[in-house]
């Protein structure tokens, strides 16, 4: 799909649809929405050539608030939808977005395989360590002793999942962390992620002020990682496994070629396929 002329310098607001978000006041996701529009404006992307796919959850409501093509799919399946779209339409800029429950619990298998498959797309997981839409249950990234859910009295007693480590082990080609408390910094990371070929994973800290009000302190805890992005998976592994979950920035940049089958016909006419059946 060719577009005649890329739009002349769009502003972040040009990427917004104008639909009012369902999010609670103070939700981190507002800033993520802002960061995404800033990143798109920075890259001067034509909105019609961008698609953002999401699953189910508070953060997965995002596509409706953007003026790009969007798909609000079922719970946990944003990555397969985005994969099918990008593989069959490599001309598009494809993003997937969602929360920690959507991406790491119900969609955990797709996360692992999307990292491994390395299709050229950017996956933003807004992590608030809680299921917000269903009113406050533990997610895979919740600490084991978090005791505020009726579903898991006394806490889950299960160690949290480390998405960046899993992403590296599974083969993601770009791994970064950003925070909704710093939308400009997050926008920079997103630009970096979208420009990097292959599967880019952005772990986006995005506090839930309703069910995890203590996360308001995150803005005091996050800080820029005092390191440059590494291309060495062994260095990245050590970095990610000793990480305290609050270092921001691009932490790993791989050089694996993206998965993209060539979509070029080698026969002039589909009746060529009949030949295999003729006796």
């Amino acid at each position, binding site marked *: 799909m060719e577009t005649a002329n890329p739009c002349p310098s769009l502003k972040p607001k040009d990427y917004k*649809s104008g639909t009012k978000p369902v999010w609670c006041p103070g939700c981190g996701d507002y800033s993520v929405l802002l960061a995404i529009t800033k990143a798109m404006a920075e890259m001067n992307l034509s909105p019609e050539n961008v698609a953002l796919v999401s699953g189910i959850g508070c953060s997965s409501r995002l596509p409706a608030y953007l003026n790009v093509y969007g798909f609000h799919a079922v719970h946990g399946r944003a990555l397969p939808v985005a994969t099918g779209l990008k593989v069959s339409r490599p001309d598009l800029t494809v993003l997937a977005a969602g929360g920690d429950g959507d991406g790491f619990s119900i969609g955990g298998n797709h996360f692992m395989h999307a990292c491994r498959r390395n299709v050229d797309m950017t996956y933003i997981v807004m992590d608030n360590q809680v299921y917000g839409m269903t009113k406050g249950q533990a997610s895979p990234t919740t600490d084991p002793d978090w005791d505020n859910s009726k579903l898991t009295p006394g806490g889950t007693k299960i160690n949290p999942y480390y998405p960046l480590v899993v992403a590296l082990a599974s083969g993601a080609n770009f791994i970064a962390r950003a925070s909704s408390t710093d939308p400009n910094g997050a926008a920079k990371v997103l630009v970096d992620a979208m420009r990097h070929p292959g599967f880019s994973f952005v772990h986006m800290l995005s506090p839930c002020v309703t069910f995890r009000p203590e996360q308001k302190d995150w803005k005091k805890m996050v800080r820029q990682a005092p390191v440059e992005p590494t291309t060495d998976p062994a260095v990245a592994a050590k970095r990610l496994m000793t990480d305290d979950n609050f270092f921001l920035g691009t932490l790993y940049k791989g050089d694996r070629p993206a998965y993209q*089958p060539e979509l070029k016909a080698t026969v002039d006419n589909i009746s060529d396929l009949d030949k295999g059946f003729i006796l």
Partner: protein
Amino acid sequence: MNDSTSLSSTNSKGAPHSLSIALLGSGGSGVMTAGGQLLDAAGQAGWYGMMTRSSGPQIRGGEAAALLRLSPQPVETHKGRFDILLAIDWLNADRFVGEIILDEKSIVIGDNGGTVPEAISNMGGRYVELPLSELAKSISGGRPNMVALGALAQLIGLPINALEVVLTKSLKKKGQEAIDASISGIRAGADQASEIPDIPDLKVTPSPGRERWSITGNEAAGLGAIRGGVRFVAAYPITPGTEILEWLAPNLKKVGGVLVQAEDELASINQLIGGSFGGTPSLTATSGPGLALMTESIGLAVASETPVVVVDVMRGGPSTGIPTKSEQSDLNIALYGLHGDAPHIVVAPMSIGDCLFTTQWATHLAETLQTASIVLSDQSLGQTRALIDKPADISFVSGGRSITSKAESFQRYAVNDSGVSPMSIPGMPGCQYTADGLEHSPTGTPSSRAEDHIQQLNKRKRKLDLFDYGDHWAKVSGDGETAVLTWGSSTGPVSEAISMLEAEGKHVRLISMRLLLPIQPERLVAALNGVEKILVVEQCHGAQFYHYLRAHYDLPGQMRSMAVPGPLMIRPDDVYSEVKAWENA
């Protein structure tokens, strides 16, 4: 049996004049290879025919049987009875009792010194020994399956040169030495068989004519998909649907498409939704367990009005069931498995060749109506190879996905008379929208308002109800006050049973429904006009088709259900007897 002159005409009544051959051996003995070559050679010589692969669940080893039926007329079902049973060895052969029926006229051929299992010898038939392995050993690179192939060709009057053509083609990659060894084996087997005394004349007269194809239902479904415009496939391997994918992977590539092997069925259906959202007609193939996993997202395709096609090659269920055998028991999940009110298309091919048309049509319907199509094929259609006339090259002149790039007042889910709203695809400026599984307003904005819900529900139903499905909805033939109502792979045995009844001067109507959803009550009532008795035939223990008919159609006269579970095939004789029994009741 040998009355070929009176039976070679395709207009004749009664079951087609035919020969049934079972080629048996343990896994690795090459019976499937030999069976396939025999079938293709029969096609070369101008015959029609079919071959079903029957085997146990073992990956390698175990027992295997190639079940063939050859005829001067097209055949779409097996008979129960076999004229010839040839066993390369008798290991586990008794497992096929029930599937292979012999009588005193059958010929049973085994290797020298072998012991025929009692369960087989008890059925009768004349036993003949041939030195299969001994002859194979006398040839450098010789194999008993090739000797057996030669013997069978000689017995049925198949010209050896037809086999040579097929072997030269199929063994091309293995080199001239392998071809020569096989041909020597065939000649040795043929010479030996010609010395068997008192062989009744089993020869059928071939009717060479039009271009003939050798194709399985799974391959035909793959070709139908590509002819229907499918260029993106995502799938997870599952028996007995995998061959659709194995055929599509290299062939999609040739036409500029792609197949992605997904991590599971949840991924495959959702990848289709992504591919289709991007404007590429998309399809997957699976079997019952995979369809069960996909149902949530098939609902997403319906709600978001994203065209997708899911081919379910049914097998024995529930759960893991009998993966290598056929059954029509996924009808209910295909019709009713989606949560919420989710109108969609369910179609079923009624023969091996029809897997092509029906899959192509299903794709056309999904694309035209912006919905999900489920194609209910099954193991017996999918994994049986048939010799058929070159299928017609159909193209649907109107319809297909209508893509709009008109940005002015674009509403993706606009409520209109046809129910089919304008659809844009990414890349089109000014037509951006968010496809959503949440109920939505005409613009696609999420909405829980009662008015939006009823409007969108009505619209999604209306577009399917108003569409003209034409004559493709069913195959209707014959007349009379008795009708047999069936669907899918049961159509083959029902058709042949009706031919047998017609040969006796009886008039029986056949109605096989290709379109199962949306329901077509007026068309079915018209097709049944004047009918007093309806026999409903299906390969399913729960009589799902019968109950579907009772639920949705106002049918005349008396109804009787013939619901037989797999794994054994429904045979023409069974249907014939059922009609006769009801007549005499």
